[in-house]
């Protein structure tokens, strides 16, 4: 088991979210991160890398039964645990 940023998953590889990095403590503005968890990217969730767009483009992941496009900057903040 290794921990890597979500963006490091190879296409077709599945990992489990361990944490989302960002200083969003209680009461602070945390719009985008709240959005991430609202879309189902909570710790413990299985995500599969479907596709990674070239030139630092977004990634396409499969999570909770649907396809989600995620900007790379955002995806980098998500740490996943993966069996390698």
């Amino acid at each position, binding site marked *: 088991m290794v921990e890597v940023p979500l963006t490091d998953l190879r296409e077709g590889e599945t990992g489990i979210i361990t*944490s*989302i990095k960002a200083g*969003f*403590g*209680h*009461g*602070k*503005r*945390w*719009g*985008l991160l*709240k*959005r*991430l*968890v*609202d*879309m*189902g990217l*909570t*710790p*413990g*969730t299985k995500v599969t890398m479907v*596709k990674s*767009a*070239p*030139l*630092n*483009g*977004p990634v*396409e992941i499969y999570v*909770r*039964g*649907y*396809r*989600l*496009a*995620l*900007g790379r*900057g*955002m995806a980098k903040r998500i740490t996943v645990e993966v069996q390698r």
Partner: protein
Amino acid sequence: MTEKRLRIALAGNANVGKSVIFNQLTGLHQHIGNWPGKTVEKAEGTLHFRGYTIDVIDLPGIYSLSTFSLEELISREYIAAEKPDLVINVVDASALERNLFFTLQLIELEAPLIMALNQIDMAEKKGIKIDHKKLEEVLGIPVVPTIAVRGKGIYELLNKAIETIEKGVPRANVIKYGVEIEERIEKLIEELKGAQLKYPVRWVAIKLLEGDEQVEREIRKISPRALKLAEKLASEIERIHGHPCPTVITSERYEAAGRIAREVQRILPGIKPLISERIHDLTTHKILGYPIMVLVVLGALQAIFTFGGFTSEILGTLLYSYEPLFESILGLGPLKVIVWGGLMEGLIANITIALPYLIPFYLILYILEDSGYLARAAFLMDTIMHKIGLHGKAFIPIMLGYGCNVPACLGCRIMETERERLLTGFVVTLIPCAARTAVILGLVGSFLGIQWALALYIINLAIVFILGRIAFKMLPGEPTALIMEMPDYKIPHAKTVLKQTWFRLWEFLKISFPLIIASSTIIKLIEMLGFLDSISKALSPITVWWLGLPEITGVILIFGVLRKELTLIMLASLLGTTDFQSILTPLQMFIFALVVMLYIPCVATIAACVREFGWRRALVIALVEILFAILAGGIIYRLMAAFNMLSG
């Protein structure tokens, strides 16, 4: 009660077929407007059923009831404060877990709820079979399976809705969080006891633990102590779990949704990959995706311009054939000039542009959107859009801008935050629309060659990037990121596409018709009163000295505010020839087209900006662009003259 009037709201995620259900329910009895004081679309419709008059409100498509976007705030505010008789939660059966996450929030908000389990055909194609009776049992709310695009289950849904309201909406089963959270929710409920709340107390307690800004603001006024307590309790939960409290609660809610989904659905193995999957792979392909996108966009533009050009000409000829009729009635005096040259020509301009170009434009747009292609284009364009501080979704209004800036401005609503909307709106008004393309091609393209027209587009792109970047740096706010569902490809629903086209067209006409007619009449008046020359003279320091253009262009540029392609027509009529070569030097043509391309959005676009961003911001956008166009025009003129470009 004499009048049996009911209010039913449709709520659900985006791309679940909510608007199709809305259309099936209300037919043409629709009214599309804005939520009071907000630039979020409000779609309402009426239907009559079993002796009731039912108002249906289509709430925006959202994924959660937090405070991420205006749409989310409006939806929960509506459900909690306006208290509709029933909320129909439209759910995509093929992505049940994520949809149930939203359902659970509606239940927590104590909305009177029934569920339309939609797209069960698509789910089955993906090998997902859902036991809707069991789902009904688990959630404690009525569930009606539907296939909205084929009209299946709509009648049953409506029947069930009325039946539920008549019998009294059942209390849904509320999910329980972990004991360490439930204990703290209880404590907060205890603390909030007796307070006047507009939301259900358990929901308020949960939202306080989730750090919901809006709820916090309201509770601060009522019970600062509860707020303090909530902060303390939240940090306790954070200590126990090692994750921020809001994440913990959202996690548990999602776990509950997942548990329910697994309980009621069966996944059948061995389903062969669908065609829609293959199209998806192809259209988001690392390499192939881009040429496909270029083909789609060019193909769409080609179709729009071919159809538009052809129809526009026929309509134009037809309408202009009425000029003698006006002459015979009004004579040749000033009355005819005003009525025909102002009023009627304004009207003709609207008709010859709006109908031939905008109808195919919107049709193609909504086909692309409904099918799911636009989400793929946004995915492909994310990297480039990030360079100007936006994300992939902004590509959609920008692409619209090449057709017409008005729908593009209105299209900025797909951006999530206020800041992103404004930024996208600014960028969009700089995009050369069809009218500006007509000037660029008609002047520069045909007299200087296509390479110079292309040069203008490249300069434009560079300017868009530079100004976009500057605006992005100047506007404070959070960075943005693409977080976008990519729905499965599907065949667009014809009736919904047609209806969307019709309403958009109507919206456009409402904005542009009165404005263009009024302003073309005013300008005609000014012309008749003989002020044209003095205006041109007054502007000559800018036009002649700074931009190196003939004096007459001053007044043309002013007219251009009406419609950009008018500048070319006026240039011809004021100069008395369409052989622009004989009057303008190549450099003058280039600079003129450049200034026309940049200097100000047309009146209709300004009006659209006012609607979306308010007077002040629309004015700032217009002023910035005028100043910038003059500045850029003069500098490029001097540079090109210094390097002897286009001097032959």
